[in-house]
């Protein structure tokens, strides 16, 4: 006698709504929605903001290179947009110098810190490939720069209202800090799915990453103000630079 067999399950066309609390700790990919590939840039931004687990899962799949490239592309575009807003404070050559410096600074900082992240992840017992970590860092940059674009209208209004470089520097640093905090939360969530035995390595790396970024902003100065040269003539530690900016006011 022939048995009635049910048809194989058909994958859904659209991802189901993923509940809030997307950083929950169950296995990545348990939710079918996380298995749906991310088709385009807009979907990538949407996923980084709303469904980060989908991004984390897709970064583990074969062909994650395309997603990483998309995330990096979004980061570059968003950095350029924010750079234009930062450059609008001084105008002139800063219209192009600020976007170049902000975009370059972010990418170089990430590149400099990537090997140490891999080392700390491995030392923490995390089972993670360098490609996946690259993707997570690209996700960090994406979330950070997308949030910076969100801050851009506020930054622009202040850019047009004040002539104080110190105040604008403080404001951009505050926006950068908030955006980076959310970006690091994304990275930490990705890190926690790699079965790391401890978070200490990640915490140490976070401090290193923040220090590299703030020093990068000093090494590439001026990003907001004006100067005769594209890059600074004198080398300085970022704390000394900040002190100089405050005293100059």
């Amino acid at each position: 006698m022939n048995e009635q067999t049910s048809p194989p399950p058909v994958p859904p066309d659209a991802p189901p709504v993923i509940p809030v609390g997307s950083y929950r700790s169950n296995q990545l990919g348990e939710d079918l929605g996380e298995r749906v590939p991310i088709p385009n840039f807009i979907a990538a931004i949407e996923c980084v903001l709303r469904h980060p687990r989908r991004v984390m899962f897709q970064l583990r799949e074969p062909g994650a290179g395309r997603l990483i490239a998309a995330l990096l592309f979004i980061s570059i575009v968003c950095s350029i947009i924010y750079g234009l807003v930062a450059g609008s404070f001084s105008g002139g050559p800063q219209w192009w110098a600020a976007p170049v410096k902000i975009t370059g600074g972010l990418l170089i900082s990430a590149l400099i810190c990537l090997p140490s992240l891999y080392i700390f992840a491995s030392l923490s017992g995390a089972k993670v490939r360098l490609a996946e970590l690259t993707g997570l860092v690209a996700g960090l940059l994406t979330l950070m720069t997308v949030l910076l674009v969100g801050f851009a209208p506020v930054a622009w209004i202040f850019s047009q209202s004040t002539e104080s470089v110190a105040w604008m520097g403080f404001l951009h640093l505050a926006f950068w800090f908030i955006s980076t905090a959310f970006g690091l939360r994304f990275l930490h969530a990705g890190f926690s799915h790699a079965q790391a035995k401890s978070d200490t390595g990640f915490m140490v790396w976070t401090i290193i990453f923040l220090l590299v970024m703030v020093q990068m902003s000093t090494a590439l100065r001026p990003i907001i103000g004006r100067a005769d040269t594209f890059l600074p003539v004198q080398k300085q530690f970022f704390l000394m630079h900040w002190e100089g900016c405050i005293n100059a006011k």
Partner: protein
Amino acid sequence: MSTFNLFEIGVLLRGESAAVRSWIDQPVLRRVVLHLGIIVIGAGCYGAAMGWWRAPQQALLVAIKFPLIILLTTAGNGLLNGMLAPLLGLNLTFRQTMVALLMSGAVTAAILGAFAPIAAFLVWNTPPFSPTAMHGVAYRLMKLAHVVVIAFAGCAGNARLFQLLIQLGGNRAVAGRVLFAWLAGNLFLGSQLCWILRPFIGSPDLAVEFIRSHIALQGSFYENLFHTVTDSLSN
């Protein structure tokens, strides 16, 4: 085609959960226009009452500026607020975020509009705005009255928004986080917009104008606040 239903203002003010929730889930253009209208008329009327003490022309200008501040703050922070909601645990779309903030602005503006006749009555009973009046009790009383009314309207608008966020997120902690982030951003930008668009009450010694064009874009609200505090401390 459905028309504007002014009874919806009452639903909004009472914060009737089921109705307001459905407005957020299925936003329709006519309701958005209604909320915009409430903001323009409500905040505009209060602004007119505020500016009337200086001159009728000042009343007209403040009637334009007051709604403009609410709308520019909502628009300027819209993108950021839309990003912060899901990051802080509330799965709202950009459209839902904007609608929720617009509703909160409408509640605030409706309250301001309701207080506009009282503010106008206060102005009517106050001596004419003169250089001497600026140093008298009347000016201080007027400023205090405006601060109290605006603070009350702002608190009521945000209380309704908080209730709505609890409903959407099902959690007071998440709603509190999102509301705090939105408020911080709106306060930060709104203060600067008020600074740029000053004066509101005006000054009897200075001309009536939309913005103080020679100083509007010189310095920010926060720099001024910082200098005021440091000067006060040093003295």
